[in-house]
């Protein structure tokens, strides 16, 4: 049992946890800036990015895909910003225009190109393939100390770990700037914080997390993890630091509980087949949010919302 667990379930769970946390971290600030849906937009444009990368390189290897997806995210952010400014259109609508269009373009490109020989389809981009990230070389828990076996770990683990460390480092380095420019952009500008650059950097960090995560876990988890853990965490505490801590905890819990529920739940219920782990992780994150919305100690506003300008 334990050898099988290490071989089949440990790595997908670790990948799920890493991806969930990497998305939840920038999600906290997106949430506080009322930009929660940027994550939604970015994860939709991943599809055209990987399709174009496939058309250019002709393969479905990781790095070209990630670069393609990253460029697509960049293009979408630029388009949203351009439409907002050129057309004086509110951000939500501008986002809606851009991500649906790019997604549609991705689907058309996909239909036009011959992808019969490779595993590249819309469903893959949406659900990822968490269940397939098996650690073939593992024979049991002892393999965790065996360099040969460790070398056979799915590359997603290392990639996501690097991204996560990077995200954490950036968060630590720019904590003050992020906090100040999120709370009071006018003041931030007056004290010389490059408010625009910080905002752009945040969106880029989110995009990198989304791009690194999608191929392992799919877009659904990415969108869910950008929003649900930070939102649930916001309802637990009134401290920014604690909120981020809670969001990490919720993200990791959703990944672990969701994966187990998807893999073993149906069997416990008498079924034979596992269900989509990505879908289940998103669902669990929603259940966590529901609990926090009902019982979270900080679920209500403390005062009446202050009216804007």
């Amino acid at each position, binding site marked *: 049992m334990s050898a099988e667990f290490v071989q089949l379930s440990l790595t997908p769970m670790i990948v799920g946890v890493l991806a969930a946390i990497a998305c939840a971290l920038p999600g906290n600030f997106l949430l506080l800036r009322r930009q929660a849906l940027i994550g939604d937009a970015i994860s939709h444009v991943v599809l055209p990015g990987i399709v174009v990368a496939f058309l250019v390189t002709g393969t479905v290897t990781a790095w070209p895909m990630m670069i393609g997806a990253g460029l697509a995210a960049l293009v979408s952010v630029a388009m949203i910003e351009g439409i907002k400014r050129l057309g004086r259109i509110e951000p939500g609508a501008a986002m809606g225009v851009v991500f649906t269009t790019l997604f549609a373009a991705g689907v058309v490109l996909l239909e036009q190109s011959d992808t019969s020989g490779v595993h590249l389809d819309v469903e893959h981009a949406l659900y990822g393939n968490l269940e397939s990230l098996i650690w073939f070389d593992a024979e049991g828990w002892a393999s965790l100390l065996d360099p040969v076996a460790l070398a056979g770990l799915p590359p997603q683990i290392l990639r996501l770990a690097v991204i996560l460390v990077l995200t954490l480092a950036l968060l630590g380095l720019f904590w003050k700037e992020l*906090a100040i420019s999120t709370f009071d952009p006018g003041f931030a500008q007056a004290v010389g914080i490059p408010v625009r650059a910080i905002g752009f950097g945040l969106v880029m960090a989110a995009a990198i997390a989304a791009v690194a995560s999608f191929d392992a876990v799919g877009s659904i988890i990415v969108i869910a993890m950008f929003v649900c853990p930070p939102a649930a965490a916001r309802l637990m505490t009134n401290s920014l630091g604690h909120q981020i801590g809670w969001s990490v905890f919720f993200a990791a819990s959703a990944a672990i509980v969701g994966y187990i529920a998807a893999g073993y739940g149906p069997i416990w219920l008498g079924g034979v087949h596992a269900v989509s782990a990505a879908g289940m992780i998103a669902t669990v994150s929603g259940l966590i949010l529901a609990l926090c919305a009902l019982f979270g100690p900080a679920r209500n506003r403390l005062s009446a919302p202050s009216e804007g300008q």
Partner: protein
Amino acid sequence: MSPLELIADRGKVIAEAPSAEPMAVRGLTVSYGEKPAVFSVDMAVPEGSMSAIIGPNGAGKSTFLKGSLGIVPKVAGEARFFGKPLDRVRGRVAYVPQRASVDWDFPARVIDVVMMGLYRQIGLFRPFGKSNRSQAIDCLERVGMAEFAQRQIGQLSGGQQQRVFLARALAQNADLYLLDEPFAGVDMATESAIVSVLKGLKSEGRTVVAVHHDLTTVRSYFDRVALINVRKLAEGPTDTTFTSEALQETYGGRLADTQLATLQQANG
């Protein structure tokens, strides 16, 4: 050489304004869309003065401050602080935005907000430390809010929020304080606390500029006024500038005769 000849030389700045006033604005025009909200406003704020910017609602007072600080883009004109562009003297300028311009539901305590004022002192990549904490407490003490240090900012009343904003500005330890509507929607106790802090700053030789609404208190609080309604209509010492003619020019029919009369009485 007549001033018109200075125009030559292809627009290069050939004579820097020699004045090193804390704030000197020339020809500032800011617009939202295609109608100037502020048109060609000049202003010079002498050191150690306490100035009110007054004018009717929507007359561009806040926009003037934001335009000077580069928070909203300007169409024309320039602002100098202590004789230099703002970027070179940011540490000497403290800005207090309107209380309602931020979301007080942000997850932070009072002390966290006040420590934001220490940003320039701490600099990039370094966290807030213990000594910053005590500095922030000192500033809270000056506005009478020390016991609220650990309070959630969403739990504060309007007056308390305004005091926290002032404490944050005090933490900046600046030479010029620009305040946008510091008395809007605050209780009497807060108003007098804020006034005494501002007068304290002035007595230390620092300069204060505040967008102000309440015409009845202009004389007792401020030694200088600038009247703005898209254009700057008057500027100078309160005694000679805050006249009923200037107010008519600024407010037009928005100021009822009775109001003018009361003000005139107050002005002796």
